[in-house]
């Protein structure tokens, strides 16, 4: 009975999160980030549109290795009256910078909506399917959190993913990473169920998902490595079984990924090879301080930042999570993806664009949620949960007070932090609380969490065109 109630509560909260997440992502989605702030959004869609209409991918690149570079003014969304900064688009064809899956989704959607020429692919159209994918990502995050850590973590993760300003903005952009991320979560969910059911069709499905990720972007290879590692680290299975599962997984996933080569060969193999090697010679754009930047800054584009405390808590929590030996096996469905994608991110290292970090986010948010509910597992770890909330609240409140002078907010912040930290210290060091005090702690933590979600929503509401002009 109790479990039924918890399950229905979980469904209710996830449904609310999905609706809330959709509404926040949908609000002025075609204006922020500015149309043209990342020309990749249009280029991805043009690749899809040109592939659908005449089987030949055309997009914007500028990489060496292309036989044809065609400089053009394509004034979609009037970018030449805004973000394009006067430079023409370097159109290359056939375009092979990346596999075409994201293009087929955004370009395909545009085609269904009547787009026939490149200028038709406005952000008002092409960002819509991405918002849908981002909302699906919210749901998948909470499902994975539920499987690994239980219903409380699932509830918290769904609300954080739905309302975090960084997730909201990232969840609109037509970037391949927004296709890789739900596949990454699906893969971990699929592997979780495979661990329980041990049916071959599930293993093949998991492998298929990871191969598909590579068809969005080559960095999707992180899913293949993650899948193999999760399978090989299942200590309940014999080595020979694990190796045979790994072989099946690798064969199926690599064969799906290889379809990119088949696609390249069908269109123009010489150019495909030339561009591939040109890609491998890209400058190491993320720099050698990439790790510290990854943890301490929250980029949206190459130059725009959006202060958001949730990823920082996730990174800090990662070390705690890996240190918890009692849950290291089940939590590997979270830390293996993070560490494997981190390796791929650092290895590829081409540019420090904010959207390259998107695949980290759901896993970091699961860790954040795990930290936030720690107090309910061990009351003496309340200070962890308190700090996990105070940092994002503090960043949100500071941004809100920059935009609007709200003295009441500052006073509330002062007293809240005093009470919260005081409570955490007392509980951690001195006192074993009785039932009434435990209930009070639960109420205070609930209020603190609600304050975090509420300030998230207020911050997201602030993200207007005027605000985005001033953001840096």
């Amino acid at each position, binding site marked *: 009975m109790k479990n039924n109630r918890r399950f229905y509560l979980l469904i209710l909260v996830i449904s609310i999160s999905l609706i809330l997440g959709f509404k926040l992502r949908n609000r002025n989605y075609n204006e922020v980030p500015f149309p043209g702030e990342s020309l990749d959004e249009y280029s991805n869609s043009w690749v899809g*549109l*040109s592939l659908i*209409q*005449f*089987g*030949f991918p*055309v997009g914007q690149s500028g990489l060496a290795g292309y036989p044809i570079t*065609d*400089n*053009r*003014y*394509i*004034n*979609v969304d*009037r970018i*030449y*009256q*805004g973000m*394009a*900064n*006067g*430079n*023409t688009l*370097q*159109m290359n*064809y056939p375009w092979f910078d990346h596999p075409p899956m994201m293009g087929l989704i955004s370009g395909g959607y545009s085609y269904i909506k009547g787009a*026939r*020429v*490149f*200028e*038709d692919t*406005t952000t008002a159209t092409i960002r819509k399917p991405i918002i849908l994918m981002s909302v699906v990502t919210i749901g998948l995050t909470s499902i994975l959190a539920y499987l690994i850590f239980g219903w409380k973590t699932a509830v918290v993760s769904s609300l954080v993913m739905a309302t975090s300003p960084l997730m909201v903005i990232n969840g609109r952009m037509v970037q391949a990473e927004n296709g890789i991320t739900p596949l990454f979560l699906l893969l971990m969910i699929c592997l979780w169920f495979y661990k329980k059911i041990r049916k*071959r069709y599930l293993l*093949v499905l998991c492998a298929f998902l990871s191969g598909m990720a590579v068809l969005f972007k080559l960095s999707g290879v992180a899913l293949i490595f993650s899948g193999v590692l999760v399978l090989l680290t299942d200590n309940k299975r014999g080595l*020979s*079984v694990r190796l*045979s599962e790994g*072989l*099946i997984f690798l*064969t*199926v996933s690599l*064969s799906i990924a*290889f*379809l990119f080569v*088949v*696609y390249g*060969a*069908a*269109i123009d193999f010489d150019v495909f090879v030339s561009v591939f090697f040109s890609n491998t010679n890209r400058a190491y754009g993320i720099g050698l301080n990439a790790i510290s930047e990854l943890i301490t800054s929250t980029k949206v584009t190459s130059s725009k930042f959006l202060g958001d405390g949730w990823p920082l808590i996730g990174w800090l929590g990662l070390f705690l999570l890996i240190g918890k030996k009692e849950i290291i096996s089940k939590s590997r469905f979270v830390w293996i993806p993070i560490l494997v994608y981190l390796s791929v991110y650092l290895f590829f290292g081409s540019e420090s664009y904010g959207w390259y970090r998107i695949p980290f986010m759901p896993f970091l948010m699961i860790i954040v949620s795990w930290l936030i509910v720690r107090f309910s597992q061990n009351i003496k770890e309340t200070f962890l949960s308190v700090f996990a909330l105070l940092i994002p609240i503090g960043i949100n409140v500071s941004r809100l007070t920059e935009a609007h002078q709200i003295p009441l907010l500052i006073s509330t912040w002062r007293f809240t932090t005093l009470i919260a930290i005081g409570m955490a210290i007392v509980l951690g060091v001195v006192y074993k609380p009785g039932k009434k005090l435990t209930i009070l702690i639960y109420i205070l933590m609930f209020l603190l969490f609600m304050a975090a979600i509420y300030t998230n929503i207020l911050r997201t509401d602030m993200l207007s065109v005027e605000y985005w002009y001033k953001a840096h």
Partner: protein
Amino acid sequence: MSTWKETKVFLTRYLEIYILVAVFMFFGLKWHKNKNYSTEKLEEMMVSVSDLRDKTDDPCKYSILGDPVAAKFDYIKVFIFCGDGTKSTNSMDLRAVKEKTVIGALRELGRVNGFEVKYEDNRLFLGKYSSPDLKCFQNQKFVNDFGTDIKVSGTIECYYNFLPKEIAVFYEK
């Protein structure tokens, strides 16, 4: 059957099906491209103005903002002064101007900014403005024939409803 034997049987069957799918995909893509692709279709896709974009008859309503730094010296500046105090200032990358004449540059500007450009019977039309009240100069020399080649790194200026002495004032500055 042992695990390895089962795995081998499964992978063999899988790869047989996969190869069929890959071959079908290869020839399918080739067929689609050979049947549908042409340079004319590609050109149309790149240069066509979207119906979604607003059109205007005012050539001074929009400007191309910024400078085409990547073009280095391969640019042309185009200014349009509309006589009502408004103007359009544009720096254009000549690599994107396929017809390297004065009228070619103006046509490309009209296409990007959303106004109609016509050149008929030696009369120039930029949106709602036309010659003879509309006069254009390239590097301060009056343009009589708009089929004249563009001067790289030069300037094209068009004045609507300006008297010659008012135009002269611009050049003195």
